[in-house]
């Protein structure tokens, strides 16, 4: 069960958001120049930030490809529990039976409790520089996924 894609999904989400963060944060620290009338811009980045950005692109693309492949594999192995990649319902929900529905409810409740505190606090971030807003948003998404994963794993390992 620990190898179930639905259990591992929060970790994949974290990998994807870390990848996105590694793309966005160096961009915010770099010089972006927009050319008039066109949707063309030039990006001037130092070597280290460029390297971090490339690693971010690599991590994000690889994570997306692996999640798509794993979802296809999961759907083949579990035709009655098919995951829809284009659905708004998060893939990490486990609703096989009433106990797993309760476990999922407990985990989503914990995440909701965290977000109901984190989002109002995050509104203060509008006064901070852009880089901090991006950093805090990424941090919130990572913590949200970790809370969900730890709660589900507690039941799976029990």
């Amino acid at each position, binding site marked *: 069960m620990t190898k179930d894609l639905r259990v591992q999904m929060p970790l994949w989400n974290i990998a994807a958001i870390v990848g996105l963060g590694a793309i966005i944060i160096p961009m915010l620290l770099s010089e972006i120049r927009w050319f008039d009338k066109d949707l063309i811009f030039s990006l001037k980045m130092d070597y280290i930030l460029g390297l971090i950005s490339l690693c971010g692109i690599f991590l994000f693309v690889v994570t997306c490809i692996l999640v798509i492949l794993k979802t296809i594999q999961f759907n083949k192995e579990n035709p009655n529990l098919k995951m829809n990649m284009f659905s708004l319902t998060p893939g990490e929900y486990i609703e096989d039976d*009433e*106990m*797993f529905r309760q476990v999922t409810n407990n985990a989503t409740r914990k995440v909701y409790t965290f977000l109901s505190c984190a989002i109002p606090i995050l509104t203060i971030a509008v006064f901070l520089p852009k880089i901090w807003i991006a950093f805090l948003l990424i941090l919130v998404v990572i913590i949200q996924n970790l809370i969900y994963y730890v709660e589900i794993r507690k039941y799976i390992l029990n």
Partner: protein
Amino acid sequence: MLNNRVKELRARYGFSQSELGARVNVTRQTIGFIEKGSFSPSITLSLKLAKELKTTVDELFWLEGDEEE
């Protein structure tokens, strides 16, 4: 806490957790959690378990502190 005789009766009828789970349409893990008393099943599931284990719900489940008849 909800005490139960699921493990005892399951052993009596020679079912594994997976087999009993399949008979009442839940996962093996759920049967394990019910046996440990960590999860209280719904009335529907309790009735299905009682039926499969050839007993009644009140003989299968009782509240901690209550006398087992």
